[in-house]
């Protein structure tokens, strides 16, 4: 019964989306005015129905209803409750339902809360949102029904795979989905504004919180994904320029650019067409990323369940959404005035440069990711990796870092370089001094060298906008910017330090012997076989001492899984404030010696601390913007009430 209710709710939601689409677009034409009253309620009820369907699915997983195919395939009555719940979205059908639910709830929220936009643009936006939603409803209802029953209830579920019982794995996809859905809202705003040609600061203010929210989730998703790859893959690297990683990086780059150009539009009514374009591009990147990952069209180190049919479907959706939006863009962009002019030496000028740099980096990553796809069409297999991405990306990253340091100090519209000369020269000198200092050992490569210097400079520069201000009165959004920029400096420092100062030691040691890596003395205290539910492993017991301090125990494992047969390394980490010791054990090397691979990675953790700081900055900015909006709304309401009082 629950499953049928869920399916019914989903069908009703889809029907409401169709209603929302038709009435929304009719309302854009003046003549469809009387239908317009239906659009907002349709969006809100659709959100509620989807939420209800998703709760039904969660409930089916909680009670382990084995007559439902999805539950039987992906759950088990003995699973801990938290993994029963996460099992609901840890599969294709459930994750699609989660996606559409978040999207419908977002549509409902816009309908409920957004009052700044002109009504016609609002209707067009909700119509576009319904249009995007309908594609996913079709996919879910016609080919991926999560509520499908089995002809005979299963005796027990199949989903007790302990490998998938990982809280990080359970939370990672929803995090990215929230990001992608947020960008779909920005896309709907962009399409809505294109339809009515009403691109103005109110449009940017309405869109901005959604972009910010999406951007926070994407930042968290990328940071967590990078740390996962670092400790799980056992190669000691934290970014591999793998298609799956790039698929999450590209929407982030586009969203970052969009965030900044929306700020220019909101504050100065400039960059109208550019902001619209980025709104379309940001969502395109999340769809392209999803397509590349799910269709299996590119070979990736991350194993993913792939299905060509799903790939075809996502590609068709891509063609309709993005193709449609780009046609609309080509037809309308010329008739949207470019907005206010500004001088190069102004806040807007700096933001434009930042946007160009971010777009260039996005282009580089996109090209590198798609290049193998292109050459494979001519039967040439290539793999594009760090030798391309790092130096080519750096050409644009370092100029962008300079703009990041300078831009926030400039005033809007027009500024005089003389005003900001002194702090900037001081920061430049510190950067130069760091560079010279880092060059002393003479063994550090160019990119890490520049990274160390620029990270130091940016870390100082990011706080300069607070100079001479009463800190308690600085708006939350400005604090957000300061902290996010500082977070970039921290992450950059971690990356540069990891690459410049990492020490690696590959040794074959007997039990009782020890070896050194960096400031660490590591002794192999024992090696034991251990067994898990579907694997056996060799576990090393290492005692690591940092500069003769207290010994820390590390237990790295080399695991052999038997179904499917697969060898994995479980690395062990010792974290200090100034870096991490990373240990991997290999096989026996003969004569009772064991292969140990050890890395000392100074300040490597700063990469992820930096990522968290960036997300925190985004959160502060979001809270700041939302509370300012609420305040403004309250002021307007009071003014209106007063006016009415005067007239009465």
């Amino acid at each position, binding site marked *: 019964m629950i499953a049928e209710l869920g399916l019914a709710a989903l069908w009703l939601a889809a029907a409401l989306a169709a209603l929302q689409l038709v009435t929304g677009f009719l309302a854009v034409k003046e003549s469809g005015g009387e239908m317009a009253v239906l659009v907002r309620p349709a969006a809100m009820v659709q959100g509620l129905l989807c939420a209800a369907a998703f709760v039904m699915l969660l409930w089916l997983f909680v009670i382990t209803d084995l007559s439902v195919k999805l539950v039987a395939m992906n759950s088990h009555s003995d699973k801990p409750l938290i993994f029963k719940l996460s099992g609901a979205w840890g599969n294709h059908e459930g994750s699609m339902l989660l996606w559409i639910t978040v999207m419908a709830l977002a549509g409902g929220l816009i309908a409920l809360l957004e009052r700044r936009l002109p009504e016609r643009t609002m209707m067009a936006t909700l119509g576009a949102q319904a249009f995007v939603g309908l594609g996913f409803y079709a996919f879910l209802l016609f080919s991926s029904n999560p509520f499908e029953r089995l002809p005979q209830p299963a005796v027990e579920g199949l989903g007790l795979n302990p490998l998938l019982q990982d809280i990080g794995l359970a939370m990672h996809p929803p995090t990215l989905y929230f990001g992608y859905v947020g960008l779909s809202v920005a896309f709907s705003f962009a399409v809505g504004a294109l339809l009515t040609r009403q691109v103005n600061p109110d449009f940017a203010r309405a869109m901005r919180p959604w972009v910010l929210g999406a951007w926070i989730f994407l930042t968290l998703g990328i940071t967590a994904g990078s740390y996962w790859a670092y400790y799980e893959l056992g190669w000691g690297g934290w970014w591999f320029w793998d298609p799956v990683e790039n698929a999450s990086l590209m929407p982030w780059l586009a969203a970052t650019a969009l965030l900044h150009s929306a700020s220019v539009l909101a504050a100065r009514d400039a960059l109208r067409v550019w902001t619209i374009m980025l709104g379309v591009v940001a969502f395109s990147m999340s769809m392209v990323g999803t397509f590349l990952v799910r269709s299996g069209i590119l*070979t990736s180190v991350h194993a993913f369940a792939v299905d060509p049919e799903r790939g075809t479907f996502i590609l068709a959706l891509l063609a309709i959404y993005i*193709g449609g939006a*780009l046609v609309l863009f080509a*037809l309308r962009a010329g008739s949207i005035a470019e907005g206010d002019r500004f001088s190069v030496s102004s806040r807007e000028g700096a933001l434009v440069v930042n946007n160009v740099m971010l777009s260039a980096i996005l282009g580089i990553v996109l090209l590198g990711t*798609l290049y193998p*796809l292109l050459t494979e*069409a001519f039967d040439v*297999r290539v793999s594009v990796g760090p030798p391309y991405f790092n130096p080519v990306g750096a050409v644009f990253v370092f100029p962008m870092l300079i703009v990041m340091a300078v831009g926030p100090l400039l005033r809007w519209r027009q500024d005089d370089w003389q005003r900001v000369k002194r702090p900037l020269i001081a920061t430049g000198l510190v950067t130069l001094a760091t560079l010279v200092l880092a060059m002393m050992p003479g063994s550090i490569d160019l990119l890490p060298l520049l990274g160390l210097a620029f990270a130091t400079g940016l870390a100082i520069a990011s706080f300069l906008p607070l100079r001479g201000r009463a800190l308690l009165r600085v708006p939350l959004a400005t604090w957000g910017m300061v902290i996010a920029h500082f977070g970039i400096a921290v992450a950059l420092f971690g990356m540069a330090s990891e690459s410049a100062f990492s020490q690696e030691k590959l040794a074959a040691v007997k039990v009782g012997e020890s070896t050194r890596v960096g400031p660490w003395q590591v002794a192999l205290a024992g090696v034991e076989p251990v067994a898990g539910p579907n694997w056996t492993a060799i576990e090393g017991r290492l005692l690591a001492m940092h500069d003769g301090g207290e010994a820390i125990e590390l237990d790295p494992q080399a695991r052999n899984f038997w179904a499917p047969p697969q*060898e994995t390394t479980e690395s062990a980490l010792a974290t200090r404030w100034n870096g991490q010791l990373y240990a991997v054990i290999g*096989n026996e090397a003969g004569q009772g010696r064991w292969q140990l691979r050890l890395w000392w990675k100074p300040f490597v953790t700063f990469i992820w601390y930096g990522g968290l700081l960036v997300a925190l900055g985004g959160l502060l900015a979001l809270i700041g913007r939302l509370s300012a909006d609420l305040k403004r709304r309250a002021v307007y309401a009071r003014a209106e009430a007063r006016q009415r009082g005067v007239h009465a």
Partner: protein
Amino acid sequence: MRFWWWIPLALFALFLGVAAYQLTQPKDEFVPSTMVGQPLPDFDLRAAHPDRPGLTTADFRDGRPRLLNIWASWCLPCIAEAPHLETLRREGVDIVGIAIRDRPEDVARFLATHGNPYSRIGADDLSEVQLGIGSSGVPETFVIDGQGIIRHQHIGDVRAEHVAVLLEKLQEAAE
């Protein structure tokens, strides 16, 4: 000026075209080695099993073509291909093996259970030789000619229908 607004759409159409074309192509998961036609890299592997000598590059330069089988005791498809390797051995083919990331006792147990078609077995503990040859998984089987040059690569387990193909490739390598 109008023309510029269509560029994003044109780029997107290009991507769409390539992606759609690639989707219709059968997906080939195998990564062919770029080392085919090249001499074997230099290596000197200790014996993986007490009954058989280890393996060095020099062993391939005796003028006789042979099969180089990359396998491991922990690999299930290797069990499936064992009888077919045995067939090849009975046909008079010299087969040498490289055991990847393996332990002597496991190797011994595997060979005792599934038969031992190898005249030499080297132990490659870190997959270094495997990667050097351009093999990306186990099992893989290479045809090496009498001068130590890689002539053919077979990816995946050797099945009954592959036996004749490998014999033919060995014949070609001998000419």
